[in-house]
């Protein structure tokens, strides 16, 4: 399978201007690649920079040095240098990100939160909502909650709404930040099988997961970020 994502010598340092310009080097020289249909799991102790790497790939964090190459439709984009507009287009067409926490919009119902990323791509609102509903039901979100805004849901329910939102579009690259962290065993198994199905459909995945049994089921390779810890 072709390479979908490639990181070459990626580094990140935070400069805290409010603390007198304190520099916090996080990682340096991170290099790995992911092929279509493959899952790379990032490991390392808490604070080593796992989430930071995911955020850099998604463009939420800036990349100080190195290249983050996304391949899609014969195009190669270096996320580290992509203009905002290009990055927004890539988020619609190529790369998805399931964060640890749901950032809900006030007043928007769960089913519409999940359907939103697919609207404006040509599909009808009704069809997209019906697919969003199916996925939410598969993730055991009670029928009675589907039209309520998720802000008041439990942590596990919010996480599953977040997963549904990230998994509904069929994107070539998916970034998962602890997708099963606050789920019980049954829901954890469902999410694990959703990830395995994504891989079968050719999605390249980079995931941060602490649960060893989940990691064993989804990982094709493991990148230990401890090896790329930046010297302070």
């Amino acid at each position, binding site marked *: 399978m072709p390479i979908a994502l490639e990181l070459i010598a990626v580094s990140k340092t935070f400069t805290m*201007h*409010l603390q007198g310009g304190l520099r916090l080097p996080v990682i340096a020289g991170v290099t790995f690649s992911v092929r279509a249909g493959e899952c790379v799991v990032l490991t390392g102790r808490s604070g080593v920079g796992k989430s930071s790497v995911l*955020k850099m790939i998604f463009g*939420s*964090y800036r990349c100080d040095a190195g290249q983050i190459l996304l391949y899609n439709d014969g195009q190669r984009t270096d996320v580290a240098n992509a*203009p905002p*507009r290009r*990055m927004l287009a890539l988020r619609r067409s190529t790369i998805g990100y399931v964060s640890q926490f749901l950032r809900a919009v006030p007043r928007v119902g769960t089913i519409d939160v999940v359907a939103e990323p697919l609207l404006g791509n040509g599909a009808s609102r009704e069809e997209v909502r019906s697919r969003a509903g199916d996925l939410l039901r598969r993730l055991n979100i009670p029928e009675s909650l589907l039209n309520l805004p998720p802000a008041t849901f439990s942590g596990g329910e919010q996480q599953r709404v977040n997963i549904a939102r990230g998994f509904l579009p069929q994107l070539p690259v998916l970034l998962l930040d602890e997708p099963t962290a606050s789920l019980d065993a049954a829901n954890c198994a469902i999410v694990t099988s959703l990830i395995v199905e994504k891989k079968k459909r050719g999605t390249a995945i980079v995931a941060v997961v602490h649960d060893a049994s989940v990691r064993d089921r989804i990982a094709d390779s493991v990148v230990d970020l401890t090896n790329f810890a930046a010297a302070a």
Partner: protein
Amino acid sequence: MTVMTQMSTTINMPEMPGEEPLLIAQGLTRWYGRRIGCRNVSFDLYEGEVMAVVGESGSGKTTLLNLLSSQMEPSSGQVLYRMRDGVTRDLARMDEAERRLLARTDWGFVHQDPAMGLRMRISAGANVGERLMAIGWRHYGRIRDTGTNWLHQVEIDASRIDDIPMTYSGGMRQRLQIARNLVTQPRLILMDEPTGGLDVSVQARLLDLLRGLAADLALSVVVVTHDLAVARLLSHRIMVMKEGEVVETGLTDQVLDDPREPYTQLLVASILPP
């Protein structure tokens, strides 16, 4: 300066080949005597893009909006706008009538104080209809139907169409101002603190409405706000201003989650958690 170069580079996206920006600001500068209003502001805004301009009071945000909308003349620099016929023109080279027509049809301006954007003593329906009559609509039934439809879209009950805005709550007035702006199907909307002065629950409803309308109608929006939560909810991109100058630009989540400049870090760190 590197940020500016990146902002003003024209990006030819494979998804939308050959598309030109709708609005281009080039080196916009405005002096108030010896005091600077805003200095050397440049950016491109494409169709369907929402850009937030953030910064504290006095940072030049409102001056910038007034320059963009031709309500004020720049000391130097220019504003280019792509007309409906596809030709990009320099606003300073248009005559007053042309600019007025543009402001009435292709642009919307949402003021912080709805009283500035509405006529407070004529009915809500007439407020919306007036923009249509200004561009030549004459058929009363059609004007009223279109007006009712827009009031419905901004969630104002049809039974209130004949009431004057004086009798509306702050949130309703703001929604009416939005309907009055959108009725001519403009492509560019400039907003100055659209949620300022509203209760939090009213703000949430308005933000949700604006967000939906901007996406559904593929509007290009420049929204000036000092509220970073508003910027996060509404915008794709952020431009941070301080003392009249642009200090940082980028994707909204990038600027808010990984602010680089000291001033932006200060702004982000100053948000009170709810």
